[in-house]
């Protein structure tokens, strides 16, 4: 049995999801020879530290009841700097302007030779090369499947399963909120504003939806794909982005009458990286509805491979984090 000492920085939807799947999958982890011992959990208010291993159930219960996991003031960064452990699970909020605490946490983790598994897009969309270099220099493992497409496998699919293929292009729907709004606009022949309101009520869209509907979230994911799969060095500001706010119900109906749906599509290939609403033939594998994500990967050897799945959600995203953890430490 291999014991991995881990910290969870950021204890929101994804961080709590990670704690839940670690509890739920204890037997499975034992079977693959892994004992993941969480020695610290932090949120914005502080942290709980226990070098013998935190009781995850009571940490989850305390977070639910008190709104914070904190028992002491130490910040996630201080924990990474001062408490001995192997793995940092980085699930703090995305900050797309500076990289935020996530960027500092990751760099500090590499600095002290720790591995990082993350769902946090901001640092990767802004400072991909810097992070890769830091992880290489310290010999740290660095995995970020959850940053793109949540539970939909894509980065590891391309890097591991499709290894040996040249990837010619990737295109797909990388934002479930936009997909939901466009799908519902078409179903109800309703304007954008109305379906945005509906998705906010259902908790699918944020109160400030701009990050999703303006295409920024999709652009960040596309940048991470472009950099990790194509070896490019884009930042999200390089992406040509158009969001969905101008789409009308009439345009959706016209498209439908001609055998198309309109979807917010991210596309990357050698000389192009863009996010824009596009006409997708109804019978295309990319024409998935609801909050689903989908991606078509065009390769030289395998032809086109298409994957679809849940792009967000606490447990779904945590599942991608778990699979990264297992693939690092399983023998």
């Amino acid at each position, binding site marked *: 049995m291999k014991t991995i000492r881990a910290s969870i920085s950021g204890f929101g939807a994804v961080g709590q999801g990670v704690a839940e799947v670690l509890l739920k999958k204890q037997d499975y982890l034992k079977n693959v020879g892994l004992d993941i011992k969480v020695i610290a959990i932090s949120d914005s208010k502080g942290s709980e530290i226990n070098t013998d291993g935190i009781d995850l159930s009571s940490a989850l219960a305390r977070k639910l009841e008190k709104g914070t996991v904190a028992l002491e003031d130490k910040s996630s960064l201080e924990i990474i700097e001062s408490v001995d452990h192997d793995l940092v699970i980085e699930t703090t909020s995305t900050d797309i302007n500076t990289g935020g605490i996530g960027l500092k946490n990751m760099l500090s983790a590499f600095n002290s030779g720790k591995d990082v598994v993350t769902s946090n897009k901001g640092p990767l969309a802004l400072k991909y090369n810097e992070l890769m270099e830091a992880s290489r220099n310290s010999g740290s493992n660095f995995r970020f499947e959850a940053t793109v497409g949540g539970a939909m496998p894509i980065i590891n699919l391309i890097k591991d399963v499709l290894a040996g293929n040249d990837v010619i292009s990737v295109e797909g729907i990388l934002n479930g909120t936009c997909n939901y709004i466009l799908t519902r606009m078409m179903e109800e022949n309703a304007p954008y504003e109305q379906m945005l309101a509906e998705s906010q009520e259902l908790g699918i869209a944020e109160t400030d939806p701009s990050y999703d509907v303006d295409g920024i979230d999709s652009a960040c994911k596309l940048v991470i794909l472009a950099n990790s799969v194509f070896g490019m060095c884009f930042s999200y500001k390089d992406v040509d982005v158009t969001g969905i706010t*101008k789409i*009308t119900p009439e345009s959706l109906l016209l498209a439908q009458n001609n055998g198309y749906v309109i979807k917010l599509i991210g596309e990357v290939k050698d000389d192009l990286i863009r996010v824009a609403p596009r*006409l997708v033939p109804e019978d295309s594998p990319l024409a998935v509805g609801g909050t689903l994500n989908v991606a078509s990967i065009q390769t030289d050897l395998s032809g086109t491979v298409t994957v679809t799945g849940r792009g967000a959600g606490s447990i779904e995203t945590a599942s991608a984090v778990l699979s990264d953890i297992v693939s690092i430490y399983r023998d």
Partner: protein
Amino acid sequence: MRVSMDIELQDRPGQLLQALQPISDLKGNLISVVHHHEKEKNRRSKIPVQCVIDIDPEKLDELKSQLKDRGIGVAKVGEQRFVERGAVVLIGHIVHNDIQDTIDTVDRTGYAEVVDLTLSMPKIDQTSSAFLKIDAVGKEELNDSISLLKEVAKEKDLLVVEPIET
């Protein structure tokens, strides 16, 4: 009849005018001229040019021989056929921004044409939506015509929704 013609010009100034003169002499109408810059000059350092003209089919042989007399090679002549079909959606103030001019952007190319347009205008002052079907002589030409359309649309603050590449 609309004809597409591949001709070869000598690499010296004034050659294009030389080629165009007989077309107008024979009452033909030049629709478009495309220099294939990207294609390598051929062996004899001639410049390949593709033009599309409207001309009385009976005058076509006369045109070819006049061009030859002027030292202009005629590589290929054929009736223009639109084999590639495409579609785009436009969203914005389409009608108030000279819809004819928007359509002409594609039609003027000679290698692509708007063959169908369905317009949906919910209310005055609201943005309208249109579905355009575009035919073109080839895939590259279709993409080129959509790029031109996008440039014009940008000036007019229209959103162009293009098809994904399949």
